[in-house]
């Protein structure tokens, strides 16, 4: 009996010793990831269990309702940030809440895939519109037909890794998309100018315009009484190249466009309130640029800059106007084309001399003693 007891005690002691010796391994295994372990999404395995998170884009598209599909593109073998965002942003409840009934799918973009990985990536992304420039992380939002209505690449749109900004932007785009669907349905029940107005509202939403919007507007309001066709058709760039004396996009050597030539057409655009503020201001910019080239810092130039700012001081162009006023009010006035050319040549010469001078200074700096 005693022997048996002793045996049991010894066995226990021995086991304890074994376990105590083995103990240091346990935390190391659980806390420190292996250096050779490739960075993969740990949530991938669970994704298929959630009906809102199918594995492939095709499955997502089949299950999509009016909220469409939202795809998150990440780089498993090269982009750690996007891989981390799978956890901190993509696979979160906050995102699910903010995206209504949209179907969510994570799409890997590999840099050096193995044949299996390549096959997997092709299977997951089959049927998806191409990701512009393969930028990761990117959130691509498509409607239920698979047409992209918003693309949110990089930190400008997705913010930091926690993704609060990203979720906010996605929610905003999704709301706009829902509104667009609603307006499109409403437009289908209307005719003429009323229909055009509803279609016009779609054009103002902060998502990609539906293809054929202008054609639909032309059909609904052929005489453009609402001004919406002009609004949606106008291109500031095309206007610029039409007005300026260019060849192949470059100003001709002896370009002869004058402020007087530009004034009538540009002011038409500026005063056309049916057009977007940005387009109107861009047309004014063309006049401002020409005024600077012809008149330097004239009173007219200053008035134009101020007038352009008044259209919308907070817009892209509006915000730049105070700086422009400060910079260009010093420009020389009333220069003829020849004088301007001479002056520019002189400026080029001066610039050349300045660069030469800078180079010399640099050379001196190179020989500077180390402090």
């Amino acid at each position: 009996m005693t022997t048996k007891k002793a045996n049991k005690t010894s066995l226990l002691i021995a086991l304890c010793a074994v376990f105590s010796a083995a103990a240091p391994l346990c935390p190391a295994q659980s806390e420190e990831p292996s250096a050779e372990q490739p960075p993969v999404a740990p949530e991938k395995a669970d994704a298929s269990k959630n009906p809102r998170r199918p594995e492939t884009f095709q499955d997502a598209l089949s299950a999509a309702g009016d909220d469409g599909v939202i795809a998150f593109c990440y780089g498993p073998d090269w982009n750690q940030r996007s891989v981390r965002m799978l956890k901190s942003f993509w696979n979160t409840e906050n995102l699910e809440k903010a995206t209504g009934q949209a179907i969510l799918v994570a799409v890997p973009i590999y840099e050096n895939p193995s044949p299996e990985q390549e096959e997997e990536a092709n299977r997951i992304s089959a049927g998806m519109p191409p990701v512009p420039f393969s930028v990761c992380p990117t959130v691509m939002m498509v409607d239920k037909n698979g047409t992209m209505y918003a693309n949110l690449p990089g930190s400008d749109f997705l913010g930091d890794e926690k993704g609060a900004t990203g979720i906010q932007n996605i929610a905003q785009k999704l709301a706009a998309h829902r509104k667009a669907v609603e307006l499109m349905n409403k437009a289908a029940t209307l005719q003429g100018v009323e229909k055009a107005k509803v279609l016009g509202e779609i054009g103002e939403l902060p998502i990609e315009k539906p293809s054929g919007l202008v054609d639909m507007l032309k059909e609904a309001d052929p005489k453009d009484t609402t001004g919406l066709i002009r609004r949606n058709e106008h291109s500031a760039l095309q206007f610029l190249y039409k007005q300026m004396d260019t060849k192949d996009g470059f100003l001709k050597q002896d370009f002869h466009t004058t402020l007087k030539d530009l004034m009538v057409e540009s002011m038409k655009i500026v005063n056309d309130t049916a057009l977007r503020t940005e387009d109107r201001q861009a047309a004014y910019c063309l006049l401002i640029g020409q005024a600077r080239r012809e008149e330097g810092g004239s009173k007219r130039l200053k008035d134009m800059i101020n007038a352009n700012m008044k259209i919308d001081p907070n817009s892209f162009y509006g915000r730049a106007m105070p700086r422009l006023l400060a910079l260009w009010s010093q420009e020389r006035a009333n220069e003829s084309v020849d004088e301007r050319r001479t002056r520019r040549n002189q400026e080029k010469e001066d610039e050349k001399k300045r660069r030469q001078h800078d180079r010399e200074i640099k050379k001196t700096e190179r020989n500077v003693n180390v402090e």
Partner: protein
Amino acid sequence: MKWRLSYVVLILVMLVVGYMVDPMLFPGGEKQVQQTKEEDSFFEIDIRKNEPQRVVQNTPEPEPEPVVEDGQEDEEEKDPESAEITQINRVLGEDRGRRPVHEEDVKGVIRPNEWRKPKALERKLTSRLRSRIGTPNRDRILAFIRDPENRLQIAQWELLHRADLDALSELMKDKETADSLAKLLNNLPWISSFVYDGEMEKPEIALAMVQQFRKVDKDMDHDRLMDKVKVKPGVKRRIAAAVAVEFTRNGWYGSGTPLTKEQIKYYKDTGIPLPDITPDSGKKKAPVKDNFRLARERYLFFAQSWDEGLLNTSFGNLPDWLMHFPCGWRGNNPFGTASSMRWQRDNCSAPARAYLDMCSQVPYLPLNKYGDDIFSNYYYQPFDVLYPGLFAKETRDIGAVCGGLSHFGASSACSNGVPAFTMGEPGHCAYAVYVDDEWHPTNTISEKRQPHYLTWGLHQWSALQMMTDMYKDGQRTRDAQMICSLANLLAKNKNPINALKLYEMAVTMQPLYNPVWGMYLDTAAKYLSKRPSKYLGVNDFICSAVAPKHPEMCARYLTETIYPTLLTTLKTGKQKMVAFKSYFGNLNENEKAEWDMEKMLSMQFDSLGKAVPVKLDYFRMIADSVRRRPAFGPALSWAVRRAYQDNRSTGERVRGMVDSLLDDLPKDDPNYNDTQVLLKASVIRAAEEMTALSLENPRGNNRDKEYYLDIANKYSKDYLNPEENNMPDFTPPPGKLISPGGLVMLDMYAPKQDSIVTHAAALTPQGGAIISEKGKHRKVTVELPKRANIGGIVIVPTGPDCTAYREWFVETSMDGKNWKLLANLPESSENPCIVLTVERDCPQARYIRIDSGAEQLQGINFKAILVYDNKKGK
């Protein structure tokens, strides 16, 4: 008894398991742990523990063996790069909580106090290394550089040799600086990378930069990502070396342009965030004179980005020389500011290959919204305030032309840790990205390219390619560099003959190591008698080692370093011919000669003297070489041109030689057809280019033009193949077909797609093919056999439809210089070809030109261009 046995077994099992789990619990376990850790991690080398220097037996080797470190042979044989990895950071033992190594304990390590007196240190190292080398012979030197201690001291000596020792002494006066830098300078992988991977100039300034980096980044020696990503150790130290070396050699250590008070006030008033001034400006005011701001910003950008896992993972595993490209990306350019690069890192991160197309994010816009063109100072000025410090983003939003596009693409790659650089092409700017172990040019229009990244003082693409090949051969290159340093040491210490031996050893070990050739030949010129056989040997060696893969660099070596001496030592033309044959004999058939080889050819030819037979021999040699290597066809066109310049009769004879060469290609050659096409294409292309040249310079030699017209027409006839061309049916315009017998000229040839020999056929109803590289304003010019009244033109595109010709237009000219617009091509057409008919006032012209316009990147791709002469339509 039975139980006792069980106890014993159990205790033994327990002991074994316990030992396996944690040896530290047992006596002697600590040592074992250390050994185990050393085996599978990056341990410290204690040089004292190394085996005594192993002497290699005298076994003749056909090629020098790469040298490996003691005790590392097996590992390095498997993977040469892992040799670098296992080179240990011996000093920075603080990593991963290990016991720091005391440098004074390590034999061969230089103490900080010694670094404070660099002149004395240089003397000490010199005498130490000299005494150990003794009388150098090959085996002794190979054995010598196997020893890590020797390698360390060689690198240290080389650094001191290139430094301004007074300035270095000034720098090291500060004890903290000396202590800190000594750790790096005693670290073999770091110092050898600092000295040899890149082009170290003014090391004292580069070291001052590194010291600044250490001050702002106390954590430089610790890689936070080490546990998560498998990379070579010391990534941040390697970044520091690369940034310092690149910024120093480019002189990018000025303080930049500080903001004026008004500017700062404006930014504050408008609420626009201030651009980066200095990353560490939060606590204290930025110093007035801050020589290293740009470099420090760059270092912090990469170090922090790496620590935070924001760079492409492959960055950590880049070889050190490749790390110089992203770390040394345009430090003096608005694309190279930390804020701009940060934006590109966060918004343009893509798999490496995707950077080849990243430039397309930027719209090609020569005019901005104010009507100012891209070449004026006003293009970005109105928008600068909206994009403070974010030039890349500004470029993407506002637009650019080729330069901005290429800088955006390359900068995107570099900002994410992928090597890239921009390069100039004739009238264009392109860029290249390092993908799959190769440089891939992109946004390119020409093969005549000059990288903006300076390689050995050269902007040549071929120099960069050669440097790439050299570094790929890592271990051999490093050994050659070490041997070269030893040679420098001997040369400096008045031992030129032994120095010469070592230089020779270095060049034979790594002939692609450009700088050593200069040193070798300079020393040879000073101390060796000018024995022709010696120089002929060098000539042969360079030709066999370099010419096959790098013909342009080989020609450069020859013309700049070998020929100036060699050609004076060789007395007869025959001897010279032997030397020249060596070059042509070693050319690789597949390597296209897309460079200007005329300098070398002229130098060779001019040295031959006046004897006509020798000259003819030379031309025969050229013709013979080109027969075997049709890719070098341009040499043939040079030969004819040069022969005519010499005198008419020589010209006629060389012309005959070329004719017979083309007619008598060896038909038993299995590549007969390909060779014939290639060779004829070279001659025809030369013909076309010469004609284009004579248009630019009408006073040029018209005989050339006639000759080439003749040859182009003669050989093109062989390639009329109407059956394969499937020419469509069309109703021709009124008048007589005038184009057959004319000459085609392209502004940008696409030799890979365009066989060129069918150009003449494309001017006939049978059709041929004319294909150019893609680009804007691609032009094809047709010189008609005689002046005509252009009544109509038929253009047959290769593709199935004619919908791609928006913006294209056709012009005519009498002289090939002054052009008049004839017509714009239709935007779209359902016909399989475009038929232009001039209904009245048919213009008189000798030339017609089709231009693809400026809107899109397109290439000429036509089956036929047929021109009709309508005399009635005058």
